[in-house]
C-alpha cells in the first residue's frame, strides 16, 4: 500500500476517526491494528520476517532486563569493591554477547536477503533453485520494510542492553514500534525510548495539529508529484537512452536534476510520513534539514537521511571503536605513529560505516564505490580539518557570504560526482558519463536539444516555478521559521489562497497515470 493511493487515504481517515474516539489507553491498539492492516494489505502475505525479527528482539529485551535485575541483586550481595567490579563485568560480558549476536544475525540476514535477490537468477540458471524461489524471496524473505524493522529492532536491543530504555513486556507494543505504518516503508529510523513515550501518552484531538499534519502531507505529495516525478521524465530519458550517448552538457543537467529529484522524492515521502504521524499527535524525528545548504560533505550527511546516519554512528561506529578490538588497534596505532595514529580507529570506523552504507543502499559495485568515495572524502577532510584552519588563516579567508556560497558549491560538486555513480544504469555508463562531462561537453548542442529528452519547454518552466517555490520555503525554514505557522498567522483569504494554490498546482501539474508509476518512491528500492 502506497501513501499516494486511495486505499491508504481510506485507512488513514478510518484510523484517525477511531483513534480519537476510543479511550486514550487504547489509542495504541488502533495504531497497531492500522499498522497490521497496512502491512498485510501492502504485501498480501504473512509478515513472517517481521514476526521473527520482533520475537527475537522481544526475547533479547526480556533476557537483558532479567540480567540487569540479577546483576543488581548480585552487586548488593557483594561488599568488596573488586568483587563488585568482577561480578559486574561478568554480567556485562554476557549481555554484550547477546547484543552482538542479535546485531550480527539481524544485519547478516538483511544483507543476505538483499544480495540473494541478485544471486537468485544465477542460481536458477545453474539449476540450483526451484522456479518458485524468487516468489518466495519477494513475499516471505524480502518483504516490505525489512531494512526498516531490522535496523530499528537492532537499535532496540542495543538500547535495552545499554540501559538507555527499559525492555518492552508487551509483544504487540513492540511490534507496533517496529511496524508503525507511517514509517515502516522508508523510515525515519526512530529510537525506541522516544517513540514509546509518544505511544504511551494520551493524545487529544487538536484541529490545528490535524491541519498542520495534512498540510505537510500535501506539501510532500507536491514535492513528489510536481517536482520529483517531473524531473524523472527527463532524467529517465537521458540515462535510459540506450546506446545513444547524450552530450556532456545534457548529462550535467540530468545529474543536477537527479540531485533535486532524489531530495524531492525522499524528503517528500518524509513530509508525508511525518504529516500522517502528526495527525495522530505522534512526533517522528526529522530526517532532512535542507542538506543542499551544507558547507561541507560532513555537514551534508548530518542533514541528509539524519536518522540512518545517527543509527550507523551510534550502533556501528561507536560500538566498533569502543570495543576491545577497536581499542587494541587504536593503542597499537598510537604507539607506532605517535602523530597520526590517533586517527586510525576513526578512519577504520568511518570507512566501515560508509562501506555498509553503500551496501545498504544498493546491490551493485557502483554503490560500494559510492560508499568508498564518501568514506575517503570524509576521512581526508576530518584528518586535515586542523590544517584547513591554518590555511584559511594564512590566506586570510574569513567567514563571509561569498565564502559560504563557495563552500556550498564545493559540496554540490562532490555530491554531483557521487550521484553519477548511483544513477547511471551501469558502471560502464557511469564511466562514459564522466568522460562526456570532462571531454565531450557540447554545450551548444545541449542547449538546442534539451527539450528532446522527455520534458517540454513548458515542463521545464513549470519545474523551475515549482523549484523556486520550494527554494522560498526552504530559505524561510533555514532562517528558523515554520512556514505553516507563518501562513496560519496570515489573513484568511491569503492563507486559504495559498492552501488551495498548492492543492490546485498538485492536481493540475502533478505527473499522474500513463506508464510511469507515480506511487513508487526512489528510496523504497534501497
Amino acid at each position, binding site marked *: 500500500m502506497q501513501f499516494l493511493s486511495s486505499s491508504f487515504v481510506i485507512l488513514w481517515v478510518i484510523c484517525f476517526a477511531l483513534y480519537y474516539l476510543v479511550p486514550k489507553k487504547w489509542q495504541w491498539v488502533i495504531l497497531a491494528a492500522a499498522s497490521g492492516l497496512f502491512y498485510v494489505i501492502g504485501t498480501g502475505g504473512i509478515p513472517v520476517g517481521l514476526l521473527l525479527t520482533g520475537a527475537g528482539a522481544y526475547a533479547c529485551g526480556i533476557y537483558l532486563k532479567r540480567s540487569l535485575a540479577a546483576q543488581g541483586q548480585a552487586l548488593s550481595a557483594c561488599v568488596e569493591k573488586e568483587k563488585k567490579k568482577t561480578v559486574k563485568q561478568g554480567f556485562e560480558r554476557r549481555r554484550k554477547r547477546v547484543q552482538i549476536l542479535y546485531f550480527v544475525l539481524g544485519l547478516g540476514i538483511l544483507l543476505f536477503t538483499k544480495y540473494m535477490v541478485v544471486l537468485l537468477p544465477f542460481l536458477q540458471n545453474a539449476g540450483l533453485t526451484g522456479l518458485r524461489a524468487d516468489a518466495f524471496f519477494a513475499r516471505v524473505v524480502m518483504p516490505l520494510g525489512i531494512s526498516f524493522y531490522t535496523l530499528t529492532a537492532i537499535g532496540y536491543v542495543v538500547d535495552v542492553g*545499554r540501559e538507555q530504555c527499559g525492555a518492552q513486556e508487551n509483544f504487540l507494543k513492540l511490534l507496533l514500534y517496529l511496524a508503525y505504518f507511517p514509517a515502516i516503508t522508508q523510515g525515519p529510523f526512530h529510537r525506541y525510548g522516544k517513540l514509546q513515550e509518544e505511544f504511551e501518552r494520551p493524545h487529544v484531538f487538536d484541529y490545528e495539529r490535524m491541519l498542520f499534519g495534512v498540510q505537510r502531507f500535501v506539501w510532500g505529495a507536491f514535492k513528489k508529484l510536481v517536482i520529483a516525478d517531473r524531473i524523472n521524465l527527463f532524467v529517465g530519458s537521458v540515462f535510459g537512452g540506450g546506446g545513444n550517448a547524450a552530450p556532456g552538457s545534457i548529462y550535467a543537467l540530468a545529474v543536477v536534476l537527479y540531485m533535486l529529484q532524489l531530495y524531492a522524492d525522499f524528503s517528500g515521502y518524509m513530509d508525508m510520513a511525518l504529516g500522517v504521524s502528526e495527525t495522530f499527535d505522534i512526533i517522528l524525528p526529522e530526517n532532512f534539514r535542507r542538506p543542499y545548504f551544507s558547507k561541507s560533505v*560532513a555537514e551534508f550527511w548530518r542533514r541528509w537521511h539524519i536518522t540512518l546516519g545517527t543509527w550507523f554512528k*551510534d550502533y556501528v*561506529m561507536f560500538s566498533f571503536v569502543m570495543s576491545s578490538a577497536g581499542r587494541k588497534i587504536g593503542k597499537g596505532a*598510537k604507539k607506532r605513529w605517535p602523530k597520526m595514529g*590517533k586517527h586510525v*580507529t576513526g578512519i577504520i570506523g568511518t570507512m566501515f560505516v560508509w562501506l555498509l552504507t553503500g551496501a545498504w543502499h544498493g546491490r551493485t559495485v557502483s554503490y560500494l564505490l559510492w560508499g568508498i568515495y564518501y568514506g575517503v572524502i570524509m576521512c581526508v577532510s576530518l584528518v586535515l580539518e586542523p590544517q584547513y584552519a591554518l590555511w584559511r588563516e594564512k590566506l586570510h579567508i574569513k567567514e563571509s557570504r561569498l565564502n559560504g556560497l563557495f563552500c556550498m558549491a564545493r559540496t554540490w560538486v562532490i555530491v554531483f560526482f557521487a550521484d553519477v555513480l548511483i544513477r547511471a544504469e551501469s558502471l560502464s555508463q557511469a564511466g562514459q558519463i564522466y568522460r562526456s562531462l570532462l571531454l565531450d561537453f557540447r554545450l551548444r548542442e545541449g542547449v538546442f536539444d534539451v527539450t528532446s529528452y522527455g520534458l517540454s519547454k513548458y515542463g521545464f518552466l513549470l519545474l523551475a516555478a515549482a523549484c523556486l517555490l520550494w527554494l522560498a520555503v526552504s530559505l524561510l525554514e533555514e532562517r528558523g521559521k515554520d512556514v505553516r505557522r507563518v501562513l496560519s498567522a496570515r489573513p484568511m483569504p491569503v492563507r486559504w489562497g495559498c492552501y488551495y494554490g498548492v492543492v490546485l498546482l498538485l492536481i493540475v501539474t502533478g505527473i499522474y497515470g500513463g506508464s510511469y508509476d507515480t506511487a513508487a518512491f526512489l528510496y523504497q528500492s534501497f
Partner: protein
Amino acid sequence: MEEKVLEILEEYCEEALDYTGDNMMEEGVIDSFTVINIVSELEDVFDIEIDAKYVVAENFRNKESIMDLVKRLVDDE
C-alpha cells in the same frame, strides 16, 4: 581534572570551549570523528574505559557534561 578535560577539548575541538548550548553533537560542533579522538584521549589520560553506551548526545551536550561523565567514570573506577 577539569583542567585536563579542557586541555583535551582545546586540542581536538576548540569550538567546544566557547559553546554555550546543550546539544553539541546534534548541532555539529563536535563530529563523530572528534568524539572518537576525545574519548580515546580521555581514556589514556584518566586511565578509564569509556564504553559505547556512554558515547551518546546526553553525555556530550557541552564541556560540562563531558566533565560530569569523566568524573562519574573516575569515581566508579
